């Protein structure tokens, strides 16, 4: 007599659980759990537009994906000690992923290894690092930027480029990549590269280098400056020597000074990165890794070529002046 009653109870229970689980998962769908992503930049200094734009991009992605975001970074750009401390702290908080723009330092590879061994997804942005296995990287395509600069030089010189290059240092990975791209673009033009000069990260040294180059009896029609300080230093020398219209100066990165030089025509063209996109794609890639999806081992972000003519186009305005709120 009791047995069938239990059987009914059991069948009903199974039915109820079955129906409700179908309703719960199929028709309504399970809600996404909020993921945690920490972004560690080279600097959080509000005066550094580049990193602020990266931060904005990361925030845009976080809002779109609905995840918890923490953006941190040392106050001084290049403060490796501080960045390592910040990373240690971030690891302790156990986020799902850490997006880091690593400052070059001997301790950094070990630090990045530690992130990975803590079971946190690691995404490297901006500066590629040597690690085994290679981390997922979201970076500006510096080689492509170099090619762009090279191509511009060729175009501006009407196919007869003779190019002098001022970079920061032989160790700089970004400069090296830009140079590689540049050389690739210049490959069809033998003997067009007359010299490679280093000026560290100093506007003053770049100015001296440019001045010396102009004084030498070694004609060249294009000067390519691989970073902002070199661009500014070279521009100063060109203006002094009244060579602004004669020698095509092609620079990298942007600042108000560089914008004015572009307007004045001293700088012929500037190759400008898209830091907002880097922050955005960095966080988006992090989310992909968290959900176990396949992420490209390296995501390149293109650069834009800015000239006097196109600098006030809606798109480039936004690139050159990323912040609407005046500070």
């Amino acid at each position: 007599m009791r047995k069938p009653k239990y059987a009914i109870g059991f069948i009903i229970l199974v039915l109820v659980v079955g129906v409700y689980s179908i309703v719960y998962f199929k028709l309504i769908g399970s809600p996404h759990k909020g993921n945690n992503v920490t972004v560690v930049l080279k600097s959080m200094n509000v005066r550094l537009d580049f990193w602020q734009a990266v931060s904005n991009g990361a925030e845009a992605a976080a809002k779109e994906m609905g995840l918890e975001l923490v953006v941190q970074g040392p106050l001084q750009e290049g403060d490796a000690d501080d960045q390592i401390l910040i990373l240690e702290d971030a690891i302790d908080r156990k986020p799902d992923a850490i997006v880091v723009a690593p400052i070059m330092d001997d301790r950094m590879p070990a630090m990045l290894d530690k992130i990975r061994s803590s079971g946190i997804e690691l995404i490297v942005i901006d500066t590629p690092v040597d690690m085994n296995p290679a981390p997922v990287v979201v970076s500006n395509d510096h080689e492509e930027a170099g090619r762009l600069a090279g191509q511009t030089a060729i175009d501006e010189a009407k196919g007869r480029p003779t190019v002098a290059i001022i970079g920061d240092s032989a160790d700089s990975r970004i400069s090296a990549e830009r140079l590689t791209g540049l050389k690739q673009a210049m490959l069809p033009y033998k003997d067009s590269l007359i010299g490679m000069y280093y000026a560290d990260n100093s506007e003053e040294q770049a100015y001296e280098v440019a001045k010396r180059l102009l004084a030498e009896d070694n004609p060249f029609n294009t000067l390519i400056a691989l970073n902002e300080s070199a661009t500014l230093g070279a521009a100063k020398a060109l203006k002094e020597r009244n060579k602004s219209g004669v020698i095509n100066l092609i620079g990298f990165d942007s600042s108000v000074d560089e914008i004015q030089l572009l307007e004045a025509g001293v700088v012929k063209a500037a190759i400008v990165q898209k830091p907002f996109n880097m922050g955005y794609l960095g966080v988006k890639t992090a989310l992909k890794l968290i959900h176990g999806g396949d992420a490209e081992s390296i995501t390149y972000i293109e650069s834009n070529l800015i000239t006097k003519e196109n600098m006030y186009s809606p798109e480039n305005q936004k690139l050159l002046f990323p912040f609407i709120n005046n500070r």
Partner: protein
Amino acid sequence: MPKERSIRIPLFPLKSIQSNISMAFSLLILAAIVVTSLVSYQVSVAAVERNSQGYIEEIIKQVNTNIQSYVDNMENISLLALTNKDVKYYISDNAFISAEDRRTYEKRISDLFQAILYTRQDISSIMVFGYNGRFVSDRRITNLNPNARLQEQAWYQLAKSASGKSVISAPHVQNIIQNEYKWVVSLSRELKSTDGITAEGIFLVDLNLSIINDICNNINLGKKGYLFIVDQNGNIVYHPQQQLIDSKLGTERISEVIQAPSGSSFNVNDGDGKRIYSVQDTNFGWKIAGVAYSDDLIASQDELRNSILLYSLCGLAISLLISVWLSHRLSKPIKDLQSDMKQVEKGNFDIQTEIGQMNEIGQLGRSFNLMVSRTKFLMEEMIHNQENKRKSELLLLQSQINPHFLYNTLDSIVWMAEQKQHEEVVLMTSALAKLFRASITKDQELVPIRVEIEHITNYLLIQKMRYHDELDYVIDIDEAILPYKTLKILLQPFIENAIYHGIRNMYGIENGLVTIRGRQTDDHIVFEVEDNGHGMTPEQLGRILQRNEEDNRNQGIGINNVNERIKLYFGHEYGIQIRSEIEEGTCVTITIPKLE
């Protein structure tokens, strides 16, 4: 008609009706609750969506009003400049103004602009450019950007082509003043001379874009929702992800927004999720679009779903209990009837099932009761008939005079006649005659004890005359019991047994004694037939009691038959008891009721 309907798998392959009913109920209830909770969930979601959509429209209207008020303000400032005599003179070609006068005009206009700017934080600059090359701004000293050509500025060209109407530019970086790069929205307008025909200059008011930016940024349309503005050409005025759209990392449904009329909304469901676009037009050509994600709108979607789940589970539990109870109630009469039927199966015909309600089951119970009582009646009748038949059989059996006895008695009579013992012959013959008469009279089964005593007296008289000294007998009957009724020929078989099996076998012993006693107790009459013969072993006794009818031929009338007769007539509590001891004798006790 289907021919093969032998095997039909039932809908609910369960054994009891209760299980089937409760199963059916449960399934129905489950289905009903699932459907209603799903429907109510969908309905509430739709309601919430509708509400939030109205709410979003309100917000966008609010944003529209806000932005409109800033634009109106710029418009007012431009009207102020338009009507200002100083401005008119200053840019007028005809006006004859010396260089020194110009300075005072400049100062007056600049002061005016400054005063305006001072009260309005949202305005970043106010400027007038005369076609005569003069210009004045809100700054005391205005250094124009030498690399920015005035005529190439979009706002300048637009104002010129609009000839006197004010135009609103797209957001742009204002680079006309040296070292200043501010994001602004420009309102510009061509200024006419007093005659209203000749164009004399361009007036410019710049609104800080941060104002619009802040307004839009502070709008919260759920976690992921946002607001964006496009101008009539589809250029983005404000979009939180403008850079992504510029670099083709993101897309926006700008063409759809441009085509959508003011106050309308449309749904989009693509890889980025289901969302609603609400569009509002501004007076000056911009379109404000609010984008809200459906899953964001219903902030308490989980809560809603969980509460619906909870309530429906509670409802389900309660209704399942009710269904079990209901099915129990429905099936209980059937179960009761079933258990009563089981009783009948076991042979209990006294049962009458209880009839609750006069529904189908009640009628079934009534029919059952009817059937049982009818069966019981028939069975009792049959038993009664059988008993009667048996009674008459037994009577017939016991009424028979043992032929040996008859022969022996007649032999004795002949012998006595030869001896010329006339008196004894007469006595014995009359006793034999009485004995016969008693056994052939068929009138009644029950006779007074008196008649039965006369019968055994006759019998014992004959036997005494045959056995002389070998047999003695005592009849000791309570006078009071003589009127009571007893079965005919009740005692004779026991006396016969006592003589033939008890006493006759004791060779050489002279004084065999048969004692017949009759007395009454409160309810019963008890007879005892005792002999002092040689008795029986317990085994023999056992055999006698088990002896059946077949033995009767040899053993006379079986004790069992007498016992059976007593029980048939008087019931099972009556009957005989035998106690016997070897070499001591046997005593048979016969108990019958007192019958008047």
